[in-house]
């Protein structure tokens, strides 16, 4: 019996939970249950992020999306879930139309997802991280490499210090460490792309400081705007 690939097992678990509860959000008519199902779906999505190696994004999803945005939505749901508004059904005709459009879009996306051969899975010859750009022994970038042990044919020419081929599974490596790189990237230092030899591409590596500032100001504006919109108003008529 072949050994279970635990990454596949957990991927199936999380993706089935996420998709099932997303469909449950669509099908359910009770607004409170919809919000609860969405919470579970987004929690499973966070698990998917962890599985794909995005530990910081996964934790951020839990903290901000599930723990912040969804709590906000649930507050809104609680404030408006009175009597007739808890369950509102949609007309049958709209469902038919939604099914046709949604089904077509889903078919298109699925067909596109499976159309590129390279996307079907990791190759037997384990890919090395970022190919031409990652070859340093910098301790900051080293641990992020899923597999430094196999010299794949495409990248052999640029991989420095390639070790002899080892275990081909990329998940035998250590846990991903993206937090420091992300933090540095947000400050403008792209420490994940230190070995970028191509000058043209190097000019574009300015980091994400400007988007970071823009988003910060954006959040401030949203805070002020939402507070203004939600202020207690005097009633025009008693």
């Amino acid at each position: 019996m072949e050994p279970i690939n635990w990454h596949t097992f957990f991927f199936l678990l999380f993706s089935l939970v996420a998709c099932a509860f997303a469909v449950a959000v669509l099908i359910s008519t009770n607004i409170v249950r919809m919000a609860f199902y969405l919470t579970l779906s987004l929690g499973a999505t966070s698990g998917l992020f962890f599985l794909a190696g995005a530990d910081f994004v996964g934790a951020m999803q839990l903290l901000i999306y599930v723990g912040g945005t969804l709590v906000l939505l649930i507050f809104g749901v609680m404030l408006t879930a009175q009597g007739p508004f808890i369950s509102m059904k949609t007309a049958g005709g709209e469902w038919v139309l939604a099914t046709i459009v949604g089904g077509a879009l889903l078919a298109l996306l699925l067909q596109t997802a499976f159309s590129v051969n390279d996307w079907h899975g990791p190759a037997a010859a384990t890919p090395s991280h970022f190919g031409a750009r990652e070859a340093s022994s910098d301790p900051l970038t080293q641990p992020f490499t899923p597999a430094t042990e196999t010299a794949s044919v495409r990248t052999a020419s640029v991989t420095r210090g390639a070790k002899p081929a080892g275990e081909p599974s990329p998940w035998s490596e250590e846990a991903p460490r993206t937090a420091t790189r992300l933090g540095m990237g947000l400050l403008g230092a792209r420490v994940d792309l230190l070995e970028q030899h191509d000058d043209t591409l190097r000019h574009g590596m300015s980091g994400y400081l400007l988007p970071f500032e823009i988003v910060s100001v954006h959040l401030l504006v949203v805070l002020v705007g939402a507070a203004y919109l939600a202020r207690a108003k005097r009633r025009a008529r008693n």
Partner: protein
Amino acid sequence: MAEFLALYLPSWLAYLVAGLVHCALLLLIPFAGAMFFVWVERKVSARIQDRLGPTRVGGRFGWLQLLADGLKLINKEDVMPKDADALLFRMAPYVSFCASFTALLALPFSQGWVPQHMNVGVFFILAVLGLEVFGVILGGYSSASKWSLFGAMREAAQVVSYEVPLGLCVVVPVMIAGSMDLVTIASMQAGLFTNWFIFHDPFTFITFWVYFTCAVASVNRAPFDLAEAESELVAGFHTEYSGFRWLAFYMAEYGSMFAVSGLAAILFFGGWNGPLPVAELLRLTHDTGPVAGYLGNLLGLFNFVFKCVAGVTVMIWVRWTLPRLRIDQVLKTCLKYCTPLAAGAFLGAAVWTLYLPGGVGLRSRPYVEVLERAPQNARQPSTSAAPDRIAAKPQPILRAGGINPPE
């Protein structure tokens, strides 16, 4: 352990059993810990109120009182209000319990003894502790009682608003250590107790007290427990819950208290490191041998659990000493006192770290030496041998014409 079991069982079963064993060990904390902490609470509250507390069941000190209570709760009739939303009513306690339990996944109990060694451990714990509020909201809503809903909404507002200063306070030790990895943060405090981050600079000292206040508010304890104490007056979110469902909420609360105490222990009090480096003096480290290393880790485990229990006991002590705050006082404390204090302490600690990276000079071991022993920080052989971050001095990261690596 999984590899060991795989010699006897098919490999998938071996992994499953190993996982279940580790889960069972972790589940000891909510179950047995809740029992122990409730006993501590009843005894401490009794002494504070000049009475004795449980003295009959299990001898003079009432050890088994909690076992009797637990058995009683399990045997209770399972009632549910007629208008309650059945699915949500049943799910709510377990959502809280799962959130509280998941936070224990990232807590290191000793050198290398962490259920899941995460690079973003601190972030993960903060994120998951914030999910407990869902159980509260759903429980309050699905009880089909106006008062439960009000209590739940107030408690949710309190928990959510206290996450902000809590996050700010947690960032201070992370900034001093340079890593969100809890194992690294605690390892950097090895040695004498003067290495602990709480003594690193006055701002971190202030930060600890603000963190403790926010943590107590975040788990709805002590002076901030209007949501559950209003059950004495009107109704709280768990009014309609009885028997095992109530027990699940209660275990979630004590599990969270343990988790935030553990986080405080690791961030400010050195985690598994005792006040004196006893394990090193007795040569109980991994260098000497695997058994000695295990014993040293066990000593660290006792240290850590002692600190957690001390934290929870202080929370219990404060609960029975201070009067309860009203909801407007609670929110005022958060927005007017905790958040500015936390922000000010953060700024102060940042500036202090910039110019005096070694703290007030009480360190008995320099940073570099600690980090160079980083390979011992994890039992898994796959963790990189390279340190997370070298010197505390910040390097110029951007110079004209190129990008410098940070160290």
